[in-house]
């Protein structure tokens, strides 16, 4: 097995784990954990393709990852802020309880 | 109460301050204290205890002791076991048993005189209330031991200290007490002499009366027989 296959497999499993976490968790913050896992699976692919996918003078792989990381940070910040807002309303961060549009 | 109010600014500087000025002032004070602590005794007044010792004031009081006259505590103890100190002692750390002879008659001498100095709070009230100038406050302070019952409950053997010790410890107080006692002694002696004279006179009188009585009796007897 060559390295790219290994990293792609790992990335696929990571993505599936992230999806599993997103679907199975009921705590909103832990859903965010799953989302981070999925994002990282994608990033891992970018780096792996850059590394073993042939010459890439434009460095588009790492740059994409850079932007992706920045967006992930923004997403986490906004997501957590929203979760905190919702938490203040419902006194819980259980997604099942966040089913009505008015607080 | 008049309500004459007037305003007075508390600080010395002008009205506006630059943020950080107060912090720099603080740093200046602490820095000066640090530097001066190296060469000014006043800025480093620490006394490194076991090697150096602070000057203890002669008035310093710690735990009580019992005074005795003469050389031997067995005989010279001033304490009469009256129990006033025992009663007045706020934490009740004094325990006295009067010495009694075979007939149960009080000997005016303590058989047991214990002070539990782990309870004693050094207030000095015992010394103040003692009418016999017997109990005084000691100035010794290095008394730490490892045995609470054997070594911190002082018995007569460790409490009794000579008048010389008292004189050395607090010369002023001891001299005053000495003079007072001497005066009292003399007064007592004089009183005793007076009493002796009086007793003598009384005895003489009694003897005289007895003699007279005897004479009278003899006369009566004489008359009776007649």
């Amino acid at each position, binding site marked *: 097995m060559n390295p790219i296959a290994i990293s792609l497999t790992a990335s696929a499993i990571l993505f599936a784990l992230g999806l599993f976490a997103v679907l199975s968790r009921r705590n909103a913050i832990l859903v965010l954990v799953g989302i981070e896992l999925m994002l990282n699976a994608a990033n891992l692919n970018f780096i792996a393709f850059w590394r073993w996918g042939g010459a890439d003078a434009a460095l588009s792989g790492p740059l994409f990852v850079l932007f992706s990381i920045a967006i992930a940070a923004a997403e986490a910040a906004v997501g957590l802020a929203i979760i905190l807002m919702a938490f203040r309303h419902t006194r819980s961060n259980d997604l099942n309880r966040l089913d009505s549009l008015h607080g | 109460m008049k309500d004459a109010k007037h305003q007075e600014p*508390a*600080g010395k500087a002008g009205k506006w301050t630059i943020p950080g000025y107060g912090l720099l*002032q603080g740093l200046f004070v602490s820095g000066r204290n640090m530097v001066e602590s190296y060469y000014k005794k006043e800025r480093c007044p620490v006394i490194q205890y076991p090697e150096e010792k602070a000057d203890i004031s002669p008035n310093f009081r710690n735990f009580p002791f019992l005074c005795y006259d003469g050389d031997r505590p067995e005989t010279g103890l001033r304490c009469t076991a009256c129990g006033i100190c025992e009663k007045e002692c706020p934490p009740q750390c004094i325990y006295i048993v009067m010495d009694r002879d075979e007939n149960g008659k009080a000997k005016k001498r303590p058989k047991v005189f214990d002070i539990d100095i782990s309870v004693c709070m*050094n207030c000095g*009230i015992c010394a*103040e209330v003692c009418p016999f100038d017997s109990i005084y406050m000691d100035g010794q302070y290095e008394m730490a031991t490892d045995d609470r019952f054997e070594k911190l409950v002082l018995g007569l053997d460790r409490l009794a200290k000579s008048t010389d010790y008292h004189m050395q410890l607090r010369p002023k107080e001891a001299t005053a007490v000495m003079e007072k006692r001497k005066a009292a002694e003399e007064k007592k002696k004089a009183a005793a002499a007076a009493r002796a004279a009086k007793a003598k006179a009384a005895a003489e009188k009694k003897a005289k009366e007895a003699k007279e009585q005897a004479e009278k009796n003899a006369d009566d007897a004489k008359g009776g027989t007649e």
Partner: protein
Amino acid sequence: MISDPLLQQSSPVLEEGSDDDQLLRVSLGPQHPSTHGVFRMNVELDGETVVRLKPVFGYLHRNHEKIAEGQTYLSSMPFTDRLDYICPLTNNWAYAHAVEKLAGIEVPERAEYMRVITAELTRLINHTAFAGFFLGDMGAWGSALMYAFREREKILDLFEDLTGARMMSNFMRFGGCRNDLPDGWLERCRALVDNYEPFLDEMEMFLLGNEILIARTQDVGQLPKETLINGGITGPMLRAAGVAYDIRKVDPYGIYDRFDFKMPLGEKGDCYDRLMIRFLEMRESLKILKQAIKDIPEGDFIAPKAKIRGFKPPVGEAYGRIEGPKGELGFYLVSDGTPQPYRYRVRPPSFVNLTLLEEMCVGLDIADVVIILGSVDIVLGEVDR
């Protein structure tokens, strides 16, 4: 949700309300670095903000009042030293003052001056140490405390020479003081008083302009005047809020009406004013001390008729109060003619001043609670008695 059974048990308030699950219940004390002894506060926090605060007293209860009712009047004197152990001489005076009122004893002139001198020195000790403790509560690493103690030691040296003990002085007697001033004591006292101003200048330079201290203390722990008066608050804490109430002025005892001194008053009554008022009061105390040292007459240090042994006041009751460094310190005595008081009650300023703690703290940070407690200036020996 409450995990600590003790917490649950000691403050029933904690159980009410269902949306309080998110509050963090913390027991500050009895073992905590900044509760000035063994004081305890059951605090409910929302984040770091105090929502409720319940003080728990009594960890240092020593049954002082009941013990005093089983003892002679004199025997209680050394126990008063241990009420507010920072300033024993004012405690002595308050008790002696009450007993003198009860028995109608006159105090000789010299003894009054001696009392004023020792009491004002005690005020210096208390306020200086307060500044140190206060900064300690604020997290300064003890420098202010050490400077305060450096000067306090000098006053304690004087006390040791005068009373025989540095802290547990047991000095006042009914009708005067226990002993006369030792030789040269007044000169030493004068030198100390003269050297105290530079120290105060240094302390003020060290503390009062400090921006961090200003930010920490200003607008923290202030209450309306009415609340303070209703709560029975006395002492520097009340004067910091601008209420002119000082027993030395409003109900002069001893010979305080002879001295020229002023009563500093604050504006807002926050922690900063409380600190500042104490600094200003120390300057006033120095003024009193200078006058007293100058004017002290020769004479008896105790009334010649005063009885040490077998003291029995007439039947009656009396409340003697003085302005202690922490506030109004009063002793209430009822005599039934026996050598023991029938009723003996202390009005401790620390305890009364502490009663408004929750009102001062709610809505502020946990860090503010600590400095507010410090600014009240309590001594647990007096709070719990």
